[in-house]
């Protein structure tokens, strides 16, 4: 059943049950997303896709909120822009965004100032290079959860990774910091595929960035397999 509602003053027709994000995309209205991915369960945790829905006290995440008949939605109201800009500025003061071109583009779009929050405790971590398939650089991780999701019920059912810490100190981690070969990881690579920032990177790409030649890399890779 089709319903109609207003988004940014434009009348939109959507299927009953369709999310605001989906309806917006079909109608050429751009709503930014970070944690959202077609292949993973939407957790509505990055909140960058929030929009203002008339009659609702709080901003609503477009990735999961369903379109409703006759509602009025603002995708770029003042409150929406303040929230998105502040989230982006907080990200920039928290993590290394150098490998996150989509976020950097968003920052330009929202005139977000990367140095807005001075003197912050940043999330920094050593590069973990412990398996032949990929490296993990959690200084670049923005905690979208997709890697944990695809490693678990959203795809692979491997359950190799979960979370260390909580709150601001949260980081993706393994059981008691075991190396990847010591976990249940099957090196399927799905986590690398859904990582939006280069926190998870194919080993080859990482080594090329380090200045190694393809020939050097192919030699390296033989004999380094530690899998049981």
């Amino acid at each position, binding site marked *: 059943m089709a319903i109609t509602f207003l988004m940014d003053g434009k009348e939109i027709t959507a299927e009953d049950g369709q999310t605001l994000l989906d309806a917006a995309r079909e109608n050429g209205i751009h709503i930014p997303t970070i944690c959202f991915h077609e292949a993973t369960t939407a957790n509505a945790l990055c909140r960058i896709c929030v929009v203002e829905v008339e009659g609702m006290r709080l901003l609503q995440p477009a990735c999961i909120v369903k379109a409703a008949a006759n509602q009025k939605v603002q995708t770029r109201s003042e409150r929406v822009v303040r929230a998105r800009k502040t989230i982006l500025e907080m990200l920039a003061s928290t993590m290394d965004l150098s490998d996150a071109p989509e976020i950097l583009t968003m920052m330009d779009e929202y005139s977000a100032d990367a140095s807005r929050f001075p003197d912050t405790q940043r999330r920094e971590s050593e590069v973990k290079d412990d398996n032949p398939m990929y490296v993990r650089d959690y200084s670049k991780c923005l905690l979208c959860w997709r890697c944990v999701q695809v490693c678990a019920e959203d795809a692979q059912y491997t359950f190799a990774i979960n979370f260390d810490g*909580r709150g601001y100190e949260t980081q993706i981690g*393994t059981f008691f910091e075991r190396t990847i070969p010591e976990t249940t990881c099957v090196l399927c690579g799905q986590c690398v595929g859904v990582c939006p920032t280069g926190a998870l990177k194919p080993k080859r790409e990482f080594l090329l960035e380090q200045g190694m030649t393809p020939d050097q890399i192919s030699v390296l890779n033989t004999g380094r397999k530690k899998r049981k």
Partner: protein
Amino acid sequence: MSEINLAPLTPAIEKFIPLGRSGLLPALHAAQKIYGWLPQEVAAEVAKSLRVPLADVHGVIEFYSLFYNEPVGRKIIRVCTDQACALKNADGLLRHLCDHHGLEPNQTTPERTLTIEPSPCLGLCEQAPAALVDDKAETNISLVTDSKVSRLSSKRQETFESAAYELGRPRSIVGGSLRLLTANCGNGTTSLANYGEYAALNKALTMSSEEVVNEIKASGLVGRGGAAFPTGVKWEGAANADGDQKYVVCNADESEPGTFKDRVLLLDDPHRTIEGMCIASHAIGATKGYIYVRGEYPYILPVLETALTEARAAGYLDENFDIEIRVGAGAYICGEETALFESIEGKRGFPRVKPPFPTTNGLFDKPTVINNVETLFNVPFIIAKGAADYRKVGTEKSPGSKLFCVSGDVAKPGVYEVPFGVTLRELLEMSGGVTGNLQSVLFGGAAGAFATSDHLDVKLTFEDLRAAGLPLGSGVVMVFNETRDMRDVLKRLGHFFAHESCGKCYPCQMGTQRQMEILERVANKVTLPDDAIRLQDVGWTMTDASLCGLGQTAASAVLSAMKLWPSLFVER
């Protein structure tokens, strides 16, 4: 590695195996009781027994403050350093203890005899400063400075007068102009023999489920945990929901700084909660109940267990409806209803997106009624006397009585029961008056707002408080006199939320950290240009865009302080 003897673990966690993943927190608690902490081999064995992935077990251990993945002392002292205790020199107490034992906060002695930690609010605010020493509450702590006997020692003069109070169990200080909910409070635990038969339950059982729901709706009762949602509407939703299994959950994860009423209610009158849950189960058709008690209230557990045993022996609990106790492990977020469900299910306490709501998709995805302890305390009264009688107390829009947790700079801190409609001034007079001159009141909790002397004549009702811009919250009234530095209070609020954010949604995960960093600068009087604007943007972003109530209210008190005292936040 080989030092760990796994033999005692198996019998200790055996009974949790049939629970599967839901048995994870109880099993980890049981394991930690044996080993003092959770070594890798132990965590792996628990994972194998309960058939939970290793990484997930690790994630759970990492989430909860009271689980340790590295060795800690056989004795653990947790010194509350939140607002109410800070007024009574909690920082000095922590420093003194640490100095005496040659430790820094969060360190363990080399022989693993002792660990000393600062702790978020322990819910002992009316007897500050307070600490939790293993499973025992230590209150009104004074320092014995003779180095040979330097240890925690309490002024226990009143405690020892009453045989009803055992060592390690905090006193209950109860006052007010009414004793409807607190009739049995203040004299030690009320046994079933003294509580009497569950008369309200017996009456409810003669009524249809619909009649019970209608009575609760007619009473106008709203939730007392902070969200003030109409209880009858909640029950009706769960009663009408389809489900082969339904649950009643009592939220006793009381962790809002400044809140201690539920501790008093559960310790002194556990049967009223159980009776309230039994009535709820009849109203919605539930066959299973849970009481989720915060991990920092370990001394409540034996009281609840005894009461449940009494209730089973009397036939109030049986195979048709029984109640299980679940114990938290140090996570304020688990007071959020969906995070609490996750915790019972053996997961990290991440709040879920709503909708769907608990009435249709609650615990184990089944229709669930979850109520705060104080809310459930109202239920037997409403059913026994009828909604009309219940409404004779309080105001038209805020019927009934309310418990306030009065702490800080007043002569007689404690739990005060009053009808809705008394003024803040009257409440403070009942509490012995402000010691010194009133500067401000933190109203409703850390997630609340500040009031000043301008608000003294505000009537304590939902409607009047809303008009005054003050949230009733969980009934916190924390008083600060004119000598107190509000910057220090704000800094502690900042620390609390940064420590307790679950880390799921970005606004709260990073916003609580940024807020804390700026409030640190405010407290140290080293603010940067534009810090006030940064604080506003962070505050409003958390308020507007966070996923759950924690983030949505994490800036509430700070934003109210910015309105009242803008000069505190400006660089100098």
